């Protein structure tokens, strides 16, 4: 069954159109991540689903009801906020029970539900404290507990991990994942962190400027980004982009990289990478992920020499910046590769791993 269906939803604040026709469907048990840079409209979309803002046009169905005109409390949703938004004047117990109390659940049932969730989240010993007496991680748990207690149709998370330090963020991320695996709840999760998106989601909607750029499972977003924006936004370090031109001479098609700064030209044979509909001389953007570039010598078909401009060690691997055809690029090499600054080393990549985008529309071509 579909837990959430959004049809052509628009939102305007005055003359400013923040959402320009969003449509997506979400199956029950799915974990949807709305991913995008700040100002892309992802938090506004979440606020519309929650009923905290009015929809300008379009429809939102939650379960099998149209939620457009429903009060937030009647939408059968629960939300976890970036700032946690715990009620400072109430104890943890009262915070968690508040939603049940407002719905007229008996005190005994409230206590039972709070206890069940508190045990699950390991916050049973904090129930009599006030939020001010808790650490950031504990507050985060309580905020999730407050949402879980209600057992709603849809969980909404608004950048819930952004206020935590790096270590705690990774830990809480795994806990959310485990929790979702166990409870199989339906989640809509807003973040600008692509690692959170990739690790948590069963489906990602990449958003920019009020539009969904791509709506697909994480592997597809990563392996087959729909356009240059998605390709550049997902993946770290960012995908390398080069301006190129498709050449269909005699034999296999090739990509001619347009050189910058007076560098020598370079061509990449691409075999059957592109559809035959693409014409000779087509202007494209060539995208190569840093992790696709390996030291030369493996079985790859395209090998080249490049001068190393910068070497950054992360411990797990080595990030090497080099110049190809006058363009700065980055490769993610195994940690044991330790090229020196200024070295010319042999690098290679599989042409099949190349992403091609239209230079003008930035839409994926292969």
């Amino acid at each position: 069954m579909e837990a959430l269906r959004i049809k052509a939803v628009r939102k305007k604040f005055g003359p400013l159109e923040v959402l320009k026709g969003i449509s997506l469907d979400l199956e029950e048990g799915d974990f949807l991540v709305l991913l995008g840079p700040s100002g892309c409209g992802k938090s506004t979309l979440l606020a519309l689903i929650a009923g905290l803002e009015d929809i300008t046009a379009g429809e939102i169905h939650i379960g099998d009801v149209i939620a457009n005109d429903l009060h937030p409390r009647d939408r059968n949703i629960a939300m976890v906020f970036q700032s946690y938004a715990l009620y400072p004047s109430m104890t943890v117990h009262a915070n968690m029970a508040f939603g049940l109390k407002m719905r007229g659940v008996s005190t005994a049932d409230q206590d039972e539900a709070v206890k069940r969730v508190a045990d699950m989240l390991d916050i049973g010993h904090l129930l009599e404290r006030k939020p001010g007496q808790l650490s950031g991680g504990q507050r985060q748990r309580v905020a999730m507990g407050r949402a879980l207690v209600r057992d709603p149709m849809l969980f909404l998370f608004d950048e819930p991990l952004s206020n935590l330090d790096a270590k705690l963020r990774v830990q809480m991320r795994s806990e959310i994942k485990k929790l979702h695996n166990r409870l199989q709840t339906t989640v809509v999760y807003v973040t600008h962190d692509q690692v959170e998106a990739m690790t948590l989601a069963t489906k990602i909607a990449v958003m920019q400027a009020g539009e969904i750029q791509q709506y697909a499972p994480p592997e597809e977003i990563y392996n087959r980004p729909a356009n240059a924006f998605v390709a550049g936004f997902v993946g770290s370090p960012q995908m390398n982009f080069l301006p190129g031109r498709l050449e269909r001479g005699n034999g296999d098609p090739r990509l001619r990289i347009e050189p910058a700064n007076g560098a020598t030209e370079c061509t990449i044979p691409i075999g059957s990478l592109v559809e035959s509909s693409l014409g000779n001389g087509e202007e494209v953007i060539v995208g190569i992920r840093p992790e696709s570039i390996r030291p030369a010598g493996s079985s790859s078909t395209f090998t080249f020499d490049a001068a190393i401009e910068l070497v950054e060690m992360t411990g797990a691997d080595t990030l090497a910046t080099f110049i190809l055809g006058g363009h700065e690029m980055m490769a993610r090499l195994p940690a044991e590769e330790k090229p020196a600054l200024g070295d010319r080393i042999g690098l290679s990549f599989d042409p099949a791993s190349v992403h091609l985008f239209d230079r003008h529309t930035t839409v994926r071509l292969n």
Partner: protein
Amino acid sequence: MAKSLQRTKRIHDWVAYGVAIFFLFFGLAPIVWLIITSFKSEGEIVNTVLTYYPHNPIATNYVDIWRQSAFPTLMMNSLQTTIMTVVICVTVGTLASYSFSQYRFPGKYALLLFYLVVRMFPAVLMIIPLFLIMRFFGLLDTSLGLALAYTSFLLPLFIWMMKGFFDALPPDLEKAARIDGCTRIGALVRVILPLVRNGLAATAIFVAIASWNEYLFALMLTTSSGSRTWPVGLQLMIGEFQLPWGLLAAGGVISIIPVVILFALVQQTMVRGLTSGAVKG
């Protein structure tokens, strides 16, 4: 070198203390003198020889003003007007300042600015129009009319002060409460107000004190003992042929007692409230 620096610092300290003590004296002396006078007999007050403390302290001034004048009625009228003013300001002002702080709506900034502009004109300018309005609505010489007149200048102040407290709250709290099942008003009452109660108390008491002590509007808008407040009543005790200093002083002392008590009760909260609202902290 070090010695002269130390000496300069000492001189600076003395000057600073001197200035502080001078202004403290300047502010407190009239009140102290009022209290001293209230315990003097009529003879001692009008004597050509100045006495700095009552040589024969008496309480008759207090007994007389309470028993033989309309002073208790004046106090009750003042109390009634003050309570009405505070109730109106707290009800209307809380809702208004919360909307100003948390919601977007057209004309928001123009309205807020307008409230400030109202404060820039001297009260004297407003009295005649207010008088006409009150007469038109039959509110002249009533406690409610006077309370409404007070809200004309106290409500903007209340809204601006309370807005500071609401601004300091995280906006997600109301959203969380709404998702948990509250209406907007419900969220305000159940979640938001408990958080700003110190500020609310401080602001309400600020309004109460201003309304309790007000003189000019009360003088113009009340004409009988049915609604007259104590500052006006006290002033009217000054007759053509007599000036009952002792009674006036006793009346003055009695009138400031509620203010002193209120302030003592909340002074810590009030100072904390006013500054926390100011610096969003």
